[in-house]
């Protein structure tokens, strides 16, 4: 039986850890709500922009748009890997990193062999993982993901788009955690460039496909103006999703940790009590047998 003082100090240790995890859970819950609000309030814009892009795409010749044409040979690939800055959020970061690694070594193995796969790491976790292992890091952003604005995303995407059009990259893809529910995240990979076909093919929106608008400037110029905006917003959306997913993951992880700590405290308390009882029993036995010994004399 462990000694009493040892058990007591363990109980205190576990108790203070559980206070921390409890607090982290509350903080994550508050942040999650803010993150979800951000997603909801971005919806009207998302919906309208999407509708506009679809409407215009139905009217212009896609092949005239360089962002839409698939390159015949994909030589250089850019992966945007979105992780969190901090840990303690369950398997959130590990899953992304594992998935990205798999993507590099399987889907883009040929390009990777020639050293043509670059990474744009958003979030410290992904950056420190991949930079230590000698991957080609095209850029990294730390301290951004939890408060990313549309302007941040636009600057980043603007740079990527320019390099794509220059031919520096032939294929750009983003890997991130999608917020499914508080306790569920789903890993997603989305092609950013070239603009995927299927995305614009679905016309289930009740958009006014056949209305003759007055276009100012022309349709194609409008399209060229809208596509970067569309891309910027896609990236912004990814950031918001990932942030919400991260807070959700942290919340569940910390909740589980708190429950575990409570169980642990309970068990420790039990063994503390029985140790205490045992020591009292021994003491009484000693006293009684001492008294008996005296009486016998």
């Amino acid at each position: 039986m462990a000694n009493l003082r040892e058990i007591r100090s363990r109980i205190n240790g576990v108790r203070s850890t559980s206070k921390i995890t409890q607090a982290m859970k509350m903080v994550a819950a508050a942040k999650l709500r803010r993150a979800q609000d951000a997603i909801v309030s971005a919806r009207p814009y998302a919906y309208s922009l999407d509708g506009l892009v679809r409407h215009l795409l139905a009217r212009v010749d896609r092949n005239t748009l360089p962002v839409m044409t698939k390159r015949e040979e994909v030589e250089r690939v850019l992966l945007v890997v979105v992780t969190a800055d901090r840990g303690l959020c369950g398997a959130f970061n590990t899953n992304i990193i594992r998935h990205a690694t798999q993507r590099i070594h399987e889907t883009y193995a040929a390009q990777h062999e020639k050293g043509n796969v670059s990474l744009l790491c958003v979030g410290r976790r992904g950056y420190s993982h991949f930079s230590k292992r000698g991957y080609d890091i095209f850029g990294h952003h730390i301290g951004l993901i939890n408060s990313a604005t549309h302007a941040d995303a636009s600057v980043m995407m603007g740079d990527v788009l320019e390099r794509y059009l220059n031919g520096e990259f032939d294929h750009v893809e983003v890997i991130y955690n999608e917020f499914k529910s508080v306790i569920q995240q789903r890993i997603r990979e989305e092609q950013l460039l070239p603009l995927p076909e299927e995305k614009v093919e679905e016309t289930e929106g009740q958009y006014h496909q056949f209305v003759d608008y007055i276009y100012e400037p022309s349709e194609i110029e409008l399209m060229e103006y809208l596509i970067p905006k569309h891309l910027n917003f896609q990236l912004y959306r990814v950031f918001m999703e990932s942030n919400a997913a991260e807070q959700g993951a942290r919340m569940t992880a910390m909740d589980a940790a708190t429950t575990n700590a409570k169980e642990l405290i309970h068990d420790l308390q039990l063994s503390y009590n029985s140790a205490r009882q045992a020591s009292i029993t021994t003491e009484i036995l000693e006293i009684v047998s001492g008294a008996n010994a005296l009486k016998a004399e």
Partner: protein
Amino acid sequence: MAHHFELEIVTPQKKEFSGNVESVSCPGEQGRFQVLHNHAPFLSTLAIGVVKIVDEQGAEWRYAVSGGVAQVFHNNMQLLADTAERSDEIDVTRAQSAQQRAEERLRQHAEDIDEERARAALMRAVNRLKVAQKI
């Protein structure tokens, strides 16, 4: 009543304005335009500038916008703006410091700065100040 139409101003952050209006005047990239009741279907890009709204009570509202798209369809108008701030909500000190910063950058002519970006930032800051001061 009769000559009103619906207007929505949305930005990536939130829905900035939503309601019935009498007229909207916008800074189109190819010149200012005004939209009234029963305007033909219309799509236009927006430049950096001011959007003036006259609502159904006849009150005028002014918004500083920095680029976007305007869409008019069946007495329903949508402005998809990158940013939109109402004149009385503009942070003047922030705009001023942004203006100074951008001017500073342009003056230095350093090679590592994106001149185009600095110029755009300057234009946005000046626009905000202009809209804020003319209340």
